[in-house]
């Protein structure tokens, strides 16, 4: 009941909030700008329109996985089975694509992804288990089912119409980039402008307090995993259309790249705070670095090192830049 503050409500508070939120995104943008300057000096064609579009396309799949994962991480959970969800969803959809046609395959992909996510969320929520442990199990489980489903065999020669649907150019712009833009806006609205988003953040901040404030925490937790899974489903569609095939091994290692994108984007692994724009920028940052290093003909292993350094940098920046007593 402090009466000491003399400032008025409104404008000033809003500004402070904006400044704080932007601080995180400004960090990613700064890193992006630096990356662009360095690689443009090293390889002038880095800044060409072709290359910029290429960076966009190459970042899309991980960006989709990372968008969904942002919702999970905001609740303080984690889903390390995302790569396996992508693998299982894509082999099921690829196997049945000829039969189902494009539209049903799209629905099926989102549905299968959502169900696998729901399984992760439900097991974590109902048995009160750490989602890391649950998804560590399903990472193996889903991957194993994908192998059994296909008997280890890849599914080739996906319908060109389907591939065009997701991968062709729309005017001068590749469609994956348009998809990514559209879903970035949708995700931004979900996280920042809906009740669902608010409840996810509340859950990640303090589950017990959220519950006592009337949030159905169990449902929110499952919702987060369903969203995460649904976006893995969309990522599977992108992946299938991009390589024109699906393999039980598809998506291996996506979890690490996606978590890296989310963390670099300023979403706290502690939960409670998330940035959709940051996540997409994080994915693009990692994508740009991969493209830049390849253009500069640097060994693929260096990419792993650079990615590691950047994630470490992001985490340390976060640690020192936010002196918030809230600590997340």
């Amino acid at each position, binding site marked *: *009941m*402090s*009466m*000491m*503050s*003399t*400032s008025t*409500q*409104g404008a*000033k*508070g*809003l500004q*402070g*909030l904006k400044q*704080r939120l932007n601080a995180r995104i400004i960090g990613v943008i700064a890193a992006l700008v630096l990356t662009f300057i360095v690689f443009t000096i090293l390889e002038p064609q880095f800044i060409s329109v072709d290359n910029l579009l290429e960076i966009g396309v190459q970042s899309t799949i991980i960006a989709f996985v990372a968008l969904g994962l942002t919702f999970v991480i905001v609740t303080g959970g984690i889903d390390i089975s995302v790569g396996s969800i992508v693998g299982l969803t894509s082999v099921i959809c690829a196997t049945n694509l000829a039969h189902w046609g494009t539209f049903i395959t799209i629905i099926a992909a989102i549905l299968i992804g959502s169900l696998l996510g729901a399984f992760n969320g439900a097991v974590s929520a109902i048995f009160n288990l750490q989602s890391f442990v649950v998804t560590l199990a399903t990472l193996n489980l889903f991957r194993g089912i994908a192998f059994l489903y296909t008997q280890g065999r890849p599914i080739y020669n996906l319908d060109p119409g389907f591939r065009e649907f997701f991968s062709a150019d729309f005017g001068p712009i590749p469609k994956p980039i348009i998809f990514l833009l559209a879903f970035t806006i949708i995700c931004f*609205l979900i996280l920042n*402008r*809906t*009740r669902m988003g*608010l*409840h996810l*953040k*509340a859950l*990640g*901040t*303090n589950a*017990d*307090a*959220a*519950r*006592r*404030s*009337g*949030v*159905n925490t169990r449902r929110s937790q499952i919702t987060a995993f369903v969203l995460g899974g649904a976006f893995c489903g969309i990522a599977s569609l992108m992946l299938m259309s991009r390589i024109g095939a699906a393999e039980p091994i598809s998506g291996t290692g996506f979890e690490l790249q996606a978590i890296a994108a989310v963390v670099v984007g300023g979403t706290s692994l502690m939960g*409670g*705070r998330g940035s959709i724009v940051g996540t997409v920028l994080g994915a693009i940052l990692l994508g740009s670095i991969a493209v830049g290093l390849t253009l500069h003909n640097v060994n693929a292993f260096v990419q792993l090192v650079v990615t590691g350094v950047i994630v470490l940098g992001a985490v340390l920046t976060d640690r020192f830049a936010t002196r*918030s*007593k*809230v600590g*997340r």
Partner: protein
Amino acid sequence: MTSMTNMPNNIIEIKGLEKHFGGVQALKGVDMQIPQGQVTAIIGDNGAGKSTLIKCISGIYELTHGEILFEGQPVKIGSPLAARHLGIETVYQDLAVLDTLSVTENLYLSREIRKGIWPFQLLNKKKMAQGAAEMMDRVGNKTILIDKEIGYMSGGQRQAVAISRAVGWGAKVIIFDEPTAALGVKESAEVANLIQRLKGQGITVIIISHNFEEVLELADLVWIMRQGKAIASRKASEVSGRDLVALLTGAESA
């Protein structure tokens, strides 16, 4: 020595309430009546079971045994939301506010105002901001920045938000769990003031406190809890601080 058992105007009546946590029996058969429109205090040593009792009424804990009557009707308070629907609001000992959310978001959490048609329903930020300002006004706080994240605020401000959230929604019963334990003298006085005002509006108030002076000043009725049981109740006007200490420690039997 007035027993309230047979008075008809009890808004809450607790009968044989038991709550076990595994082997721990936090509540061992509590019988308690809360009169309508009055301020009831619950006192007791640390570990007596006060918070557990409050959480049973607020829908946090499921009862192991016993029942709760609300306005004379047996009710099952299965969730915090159910308690809210009955008109029971709680200001918890730890406040239960969400540090990364703004004042407005905290006030409206799970009671959001939305616009648009599903699935395109978005939060109506403008309406909620207006409402939040009014709610803070009502508890006499006109200075708080409603867009600010609550994690960056002082203890007093956070409590103002928690209280405002309980008061602002037209509750019939408001429960305060140790509201002044962490506050300074001035802020404690403000809480006391507020409780008086709520009583003036006909709202039933339950307050848990360690401060006997405060209890005797604010409350109409005092319940004493010891080792998971409600052992006695006294009219505040008929007891002294010393009497209460005696009851608490068991020097005087109920």
